[in-house]
C-alpha cells in the first residue's frame, strides 16, 4: 500500500457485562395511599421491566430490569430457581435456561409464576394472601385466547389481584411517544415494532389497533443473534466456545448498523481499503500459556534462559560430586600405593585383589588417570564458577558444554540426560516464530455488521420465505384506501429493542420513499428509548386511566369470574377482543378432542370451575365437577 500511515485498526474487546442481583425494595408508602398503585410489567421475551405506576418522580422509571429467564439445575428445589439478574453470567447456565415464552407468547405459566414471584418480592410486596395492586401487563399482538386465559387465571387466582389490564407493548410505546410529541388522541399511524422474537406491523386507526390488518414477521433480535453466532462459528471453527450468544448480542448492540442502501453499502465493503477501515476486530480473551509454543518471542527466550540456568546448576552439582568421589578413590589408591612403597607386599597384594587389579603398573596408571581427572575437574569447577556470572543466554553452544563430559575417561559415569536435554534447544533457538497470538484470537467482524440486522428486511438471508418488514408494510398499506394510507404513513413509528441499530430510521425512510407515490408525504419517527418506552407508555396509561368500577381497559375480578379468563377490556393500546366462549380448562386428556363440544357449555363450565377452584380442594375434584357439568 502506498500510504505510509497504516489504516486505523479498530480493535475492540468484549465487555461481557455481568449483572448483579436485584435488591429487594421496600414497599413505598406512596404506593399504598391513597389507593394502591398499579404494578406495571412489560413482560417482554427478552427482558422483563417492572415498576410502579405511581405519580411519584422517584418511580418514573422501571425498578426492575432483568432477562426473562429462569435456571434451575436438575433435582434442585423450585425455590432454588434463579431468575433474571440472579444469574450473573448466562453463558455457563445456557443449557439450563428456560423462558416462559415460546416465540413471543407466554406458554409456560410455571416459569411466569416464578417471574411474578420474583417481581412482587423484589418490589416489596409482602401483603398476606393477595397482591393488592392492579396490574398492567403487556402481551403479544393477537395473543391466543388460551394464553390470556391462563394468565388471568394465574393473576386472579394465585395472586388475587383486584384488576388487570393487558396491552400491546408497541402500542404503549406509540401512545407514550405521541403523548410527548403533543399529538392528541385518538392517534392514527402505523407502528413497526421489532422485539426479540417477532416483529410486527400494527396499523392504528383512531386510537384503536386495526388488528385485521396487522401482520407479524417472525424475524427479530434473537434470529439476528443466532445468525451472527452461526456465521462466526463457521468463519472461526477454532473459537467455537468463545463465540457465545451473549457476546453476539453485545456485537449486535454495540457494533452493528443498518445499511441505508444495502446493496450500495456492500459494494463499498468490496474495496480492501474500506474493509480495513471499517472492520471491527473483536479481541477474544486468551492466555499466553497455551501449549504448542504459541507464546511471544521474549517469553520464549526468558523461559529458555531459566531452563539453561537450571541445567547448569544441576551439572555443576553433579561435577562437584564426581570430583569428591574421585578424590576419595584417589586417596584410597594412594594408600595402597604407599603400602607398596613401605614394602608391605602381602598386604599390598591383598588390597590389589580387593580392588580387582592385577599388577602395580595397573594401579599406577589408574592413579595417574584419576589424578588427571581430579585436576581437570577442579579446574573446570573454578572455570565455570567464574563464567557463570557473565554467561550469556544462548551464547554457550550446547556442544561446547558437552566436551567435558565426553573427554572424561572410562571410569567417569556418563550422565546421558544432559546432552539430550540441551540438544533440542538448539533449533528452537534459531527459529523465530512470527505467530501473533493476539491476532489469532481476533474475530474480524466485517460485513456481518450489517448482514445480521438485514435479515429483518430480507428474511431470505436465513432461508425464510416470509416477507421482510418493509415488504410487509407495503402489503399492509395496500389494504387501505389511499386516504387511509396517507393518514397512516403520516405517522410511521419505530419501536422495540431490535430497532436500535444506527441507520434504521433512514433505512425505513428510504424504502418508504420508494414505495409511496411520487411527491407524497410521510413521517418516520423513532421511539425515544425504543426498548423501554413500552414500559413508560404502560405506566402513563395506568396513571391516566386509574382502575375502578367499570373503567375502560381494566378487567376486574368480577369480570374475570363472569366473562371468563380470555376476556379483555379494550383500550387505546390493547388488542381487540373477539368474544368467543372458551372452555374453561378441564383436567382430562380427551378435552383436546372434545373442545368444540365444550364451547357450547363453556359459560356454565367455566363458572363451576372457578367456584370449585376457590374452595381449597384438589384439582382433580374440580375437574370431576366440571366434567359433570359439561
Amino acid at each position, binding site marked *: 500500500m502506498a500510504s505510509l500511515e497504516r489504516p486505523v485498526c479498530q480493535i475492540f474487546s468484549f465487555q461481557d457485562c455481568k449483572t448483579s442481583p436485584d435488591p429487594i425494595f421496600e414497599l413505598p408508602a406512596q404506593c399504598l395511599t391513597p389507593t394502591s398503585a398499579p404494578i406495571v410489567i412489560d413482560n417482554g421475551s427478552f427482558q422483563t421491566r417492572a415498576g410502579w405506576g405511581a405519580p411519584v418522580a422517584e418511580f418514573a422509571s422501571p425498578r426492575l430490569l432483568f432477562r426473562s429467564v429462569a435456571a434451575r*439445575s*436438575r433435582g*434442585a*428445589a*423450585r*425455590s*432454588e430457581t434463579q431468575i433474571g439478574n440472579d444469574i450473573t453470567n448466562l453463558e455457563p447456565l445456557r443449557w439450563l435456561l428456560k423462558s416462559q415464552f*415460546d416465540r413471543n407468547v407466554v*406458554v*409456560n*405459566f410455571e416459569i411466569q409464576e416464578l417471574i411474578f*414471584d420474583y417481581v*412482587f418480592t423484589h418490589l416489596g*410486596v409482602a*401483603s*398476606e394472601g*393477595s*397482591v393488592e395492586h392492579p396490574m398492567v401487563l403487556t402481551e403479544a*399482538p*393477537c*395473543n*391466543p*385466547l*388460551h*394464553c390470556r386465559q*391462563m394468565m388471568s387465571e394465574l393473576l386472579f387466582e*394465585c395472586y*388475587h389481584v383486584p384488576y388487570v389490564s393487558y396491552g400491546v407493548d408497541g402500542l404503549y410505546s406509540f401512545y407514550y411517544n405521541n403523548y410527548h410529541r403533543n399529538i392528541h388522541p385518538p392517534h392514527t399511524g402505523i407502528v413497526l415494532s421489532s422485539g426479540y422474537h417477532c416483529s410486527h406491523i400494527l396499523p392504528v386507526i383512531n386510537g384503536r389497533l386495526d*388488528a385485521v390488518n396487522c*401482520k*407479524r*414477521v417472525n424475524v427479530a433480535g434473537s434470529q439476528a443473534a443466532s*445468525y451472527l453466532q452461526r456465521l462466526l*462459528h*463457521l468463519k472461526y*471453527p477454532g473459537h467455537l466456545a468463545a463465540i457465545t450468544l451473549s457476546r453476539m448480542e453485545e456485537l449486535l448492540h454495540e457494533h452493528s448498523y443498518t445499511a441505508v442502501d444495502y446493496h450500495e453499502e*456492500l459494494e463499498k465493503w468490496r474495496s480492501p481499503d474500506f474493509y480495513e477501515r471499517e472492520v471491527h476486530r473483536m479481541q477474544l480473551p486468551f492466555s499466553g500459556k497455551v501449549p504448542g509454543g504459541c507464546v511471544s518471542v521474549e517469553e520464549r527466550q526468558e523461559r529458555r534462559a531459566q531452563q539453561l540456568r537450571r541445567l547448569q546448576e544441576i551439572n555443576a552439582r553433579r561435577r562437584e560430586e564426581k570430583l569428591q568421589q574421585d578424590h576419595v578413590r584417589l586417596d584410597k589408591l594412594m594408600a595402597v600405593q604407599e603400602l607398596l612403597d613401605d614394602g608391605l607386599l602381602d598386604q599390598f597384594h591383598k588390597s590389589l585383589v580387593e580392588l580387582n587389579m592385577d599388577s602395580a603398573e595397573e594401579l599406577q596408571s589408574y592413579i595417574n588417570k584419576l589424578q588427571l581427572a581430579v585436576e581437570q575437574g577442579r579446574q573446570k569447577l573454578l572455570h565455570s564458577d567464574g563464567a557463570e556470572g557473565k554467561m550469556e543466554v544462548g551464547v554457550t553452544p550446547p556442544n561446547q558444554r558437552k566436551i567435558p563430559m565426553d573427554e572424561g575417561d572410562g571410569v567417569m559415569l556418563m550422565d546421558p540426560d544432559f546432552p539430550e536435554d540441551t540438544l533440542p534447544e538448539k533449533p528452537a533457538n534459531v527459529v523465530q516464530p512470527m505467530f501473533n497470538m493476539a491476532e489469532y484470537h481476533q474475530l474480524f467482524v466485517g*460485513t456481518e455488521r450489517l*448482514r445480521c440486522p438485514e435479515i429483518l428486511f*430480507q*428474511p*431470505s*438471508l436465513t*432461508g425464510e*420465505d*416470509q*416477507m421482510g418488514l418493509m*415488504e410487509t408494510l407495503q402489503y399492509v398499506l395496500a389494504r387501505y384506501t389511499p386516504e387511509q394510507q396517507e393518514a397512516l404513513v403520516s405517522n410511521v413509528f419505530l419501536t422495540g429493542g431490535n430497532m436500535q441499530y444506527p441507520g434504521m430510521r433512514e433505512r425505513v425512510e428510504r424504502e418508504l420513499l420508494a414505495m409511496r407515490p411520487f411527491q407524497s408525504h410521510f413521517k418516520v419517527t423513532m421511539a425515544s428509548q425504543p426498548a423501554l418506552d413500552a414500559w413508560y407508555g404502560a405506566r402513563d396509561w395506568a396513571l391516566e386511566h386509574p382502575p375502578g368500577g367499570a373503567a375502560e381497559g381494566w378487567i376486574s375480578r368480577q369480570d374475570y369470574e363472569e366473562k371468563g379468563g380470555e376476556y379483555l377490556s379494550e383500550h387505546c393500546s390493547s388488542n381487540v377482543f*373477539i368474544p368467543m366462549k372458551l372452555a*374453561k380448562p*378441564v*383436567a382430562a386428556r380427551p*378435552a*383436546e378432542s372434545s373442545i*368444540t363440544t365444550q*364451547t357450547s357449555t363453556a359459560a356454565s363450565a367455566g363458572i363451576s*370451575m372457578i367456584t370449585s377452584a376457590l374452595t381449597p380442594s384438589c*384439582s*382433580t375434584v374440580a*375437574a370431576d365437577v366440571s366434567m359433570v357439568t359439561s
Partner: protein
Amino acid sequence: MTVVETVSEVKPAGSVDSGPTATAESTAKPPPFKDPSFMHSGIGGAAAGKKNRTWKNLKQILALERTLPWKLNDPNYYNIDAPPSLKPAKKYSDISGLPANYTDPQTKLRFTSSEEFSYIRLLPTDVVTGYLALRKATCIVP
C-alpha cells in the same frame, strides 16, 4: 403450596454443590402474597397441578385455537403471519455476504471472487453444509 421435593435417583454432577442448600431451601416458605392452594389448570392437563407437567408449546396452542369458531375476518395469532415474499430472494455470497454472481457447482456455495472460490474449495464438508444450512439450502434436489 408445600414444596415437597422428590429427589431424583441420581443427581447430576453439576448440582452437587447446590445439593445441601437445596434440601434446606425446599422447606422455605413461598411468598406470603400467594394463594397456597393455587394450581395451574390447563386444557388437556391430566398433569395439571403436577410438578413435572409439560406445558403446551405454541404450536399445540395454535392448533387448539384453530378449532374455535372464528369468523373469516377475525384476527388471531396464526393468521397475522406475514405472507411469503413475492420478491425473488437476492443472492449473496455465503462467505463474505457480498452480492454473488457465481455458484460453485460442487459445494453449491455462492461466491463473488476467485479468492473466495479457492477458499470455498479448501473448506471442510461440515463447514460447507453449515453454510448451506444457514440459508436452509441443504436440500439435495437443486
